[in-house]
């Protein structure tokens, strides 16, 4: 019972939690290394082989730094804010199915759970910006709140097409339905594009890092943070990126099932491998987006969100629903 590959078994929990945290730490190094390669540099390569232990050195530095709360800050929210992101993002990873019989929770409202958790994540930036009692932090917090709440709207609507097609909110059943009917990227291409863009905005990653905007508002909501409190914001962002990179394959690219029938004989091993491979591709894509694209203005962000993405996603849901109804009859 304890050491079986059943959803929610302690073995699964330990494995997935360890893998997520380890991947997050490696991701910080990997992103910097990839950004280096994209701009014809080498990136951090001094600590350990290929610089793998760079993140551990960074964490060591952040932990040994002074844990300082500014005297003008609102103490309790200031301390609570950075904890919210990593916790919430880890919780949302719980419902992601990694392989058949491998996962932490098998929730029949898995998709809604992820959106609930992502919604809570907005509090982190808001509270951090508000509690810092600093005008730049407040601007950053405002931007983060506005951006995350408005992009959440059609992030939810954009995947309703997937829900309609698979007839379920359960991520495991969505993957199984894709195994039967083919990947959902093809019938849901518009929904997929909107989901990727909204997901980028939701994790506050480039090019939608207006909440941080180093050049304009000096790192925004985390201006006043230092040491491991800043590190928690940082780690939270990377776990969010990991969740997003794992969610896109689950929703649109057939989850743990191999493309072109390239399965291994062992279902669990094959599932883990293909899930990791697909997630890795998306991580590289998000790093590429960070390296290549420029940040839009805030009004451009809002215009695109409300005037382009929202109508497009609504049309997508309407058309998908109509087609499914027509086929059903």
């Amino acid at each position, binding site marked *: 019972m304890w050491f079986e590959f059943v959803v929610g078994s302690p073995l699964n929990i330990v494995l997935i939690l360890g893998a997520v945290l380890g991947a997050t730490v490696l991701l910080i190094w990997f992103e910097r290394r*990839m950004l*280096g*390669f*994209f*701009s*014809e*540099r*080498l990136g951090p390569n001094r600590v350990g082989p290929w610089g793998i232990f760079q993140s551990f050195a960074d964490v060591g530095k952040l932990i040994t730094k002074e844990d300082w709360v500014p005297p003008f800050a609102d103490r309790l929210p200031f301390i609570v804010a950075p904890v919210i992101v990593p916790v919430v993002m880890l919780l949302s990873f719980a419902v992601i199915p990694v392989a058949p019989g491998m996962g932490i929770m098998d929730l029949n409202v898995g998709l809604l759970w992820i959106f609930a958790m992502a919604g809570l994540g907005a509090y982190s930036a808001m509270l951090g910006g508000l509690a810092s009692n600093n005008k730049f932090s407040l601007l950053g917090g405002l931007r983060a709140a506005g951006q995350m709440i408005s992009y959440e709207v059609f992030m939810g609507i954009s995947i309703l097409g997937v829900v309609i097609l698979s007839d379920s909110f359960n991520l495991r059943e969505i993957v199984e339905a894709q195994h039967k009917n083919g990947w959902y990227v093809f019938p849901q291409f518009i929904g997929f594009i909107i989901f990727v863009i909204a997901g980028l905005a939701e994790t506050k990653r480039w090019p939608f890092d207006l909440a941080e905007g180093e050049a304009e508002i000096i790192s925004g909501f985390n201006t006043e943070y230092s040491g491991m409190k800043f590190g928690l914001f940082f780690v939270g962002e990377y776990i969010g990126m990991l969740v997003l990179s794992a969610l896109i394959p689950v929703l649109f690219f057939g989850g743990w099932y191999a493309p072109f029938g390239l399965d291994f004989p062992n279902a669990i091993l094959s599932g883990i491998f293909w899930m990791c491979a697909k997630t890795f591709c998306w991580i590289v894509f998000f790093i*590429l*987006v960070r*390296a*290549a*694209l420029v940040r839009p203005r805030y009004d451009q962000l809002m215009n695109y969100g409300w005037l382009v993405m929202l109508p497009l996603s609504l049309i997508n849901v309407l058309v998908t629903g109509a087609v499914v109804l027509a086929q059903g009859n």
Partner: protein
Amino acid sequence: MLTVLGKQLYIIWSQIVTLWLVFMHIFKKADTVEYPDVMPYMFPRWRGRIILSRDPDGEERCVACNLCAVACPVDCIALQKTEDENGRWYPEFFRINFSRCIMCGFCEEACPTHAIQLTPDFEMAEYVRQDMVWEKEDMLINGTGKYHDYNFYKIAGKAIGGKGKGEARNELPPIDRRSLLP
């Protein structure tokens, strides 16, 4: 309406092109020179650590004329002139404060005897600030630096012990001003 749509499509297309072009950079060789592992090639005229050279006979070239100290824009050179028994001028002390030095090379340009020269060495970091002040013994080398044949006292008209008036290279013997005969 159509122009607006076309403009939006062009924007999306340009984003995709950007992504593609940046992605192709991953196959190019990095420009980074991994300095402590690989020494970069330093050009002979690189303006680095300052040395004081000697002439081909092995004597100090510096004649303590103070032109380098005057030319120095950050006033990092200090020296005091003295004279030996032959009448050669040389610096009693010659001190460069490398924490102020900006490696501009003006001292090298100002030097009439090619004594002070800049070298391609740049690894001059110190743990103690006082160690950045270099004395003459630290800077004086046994060679001639970049100019191998130049010997100031062999060319200049100044008389020193062992070389009288008119004995320098390309120099005529002194004229007897009291004689009117051609």
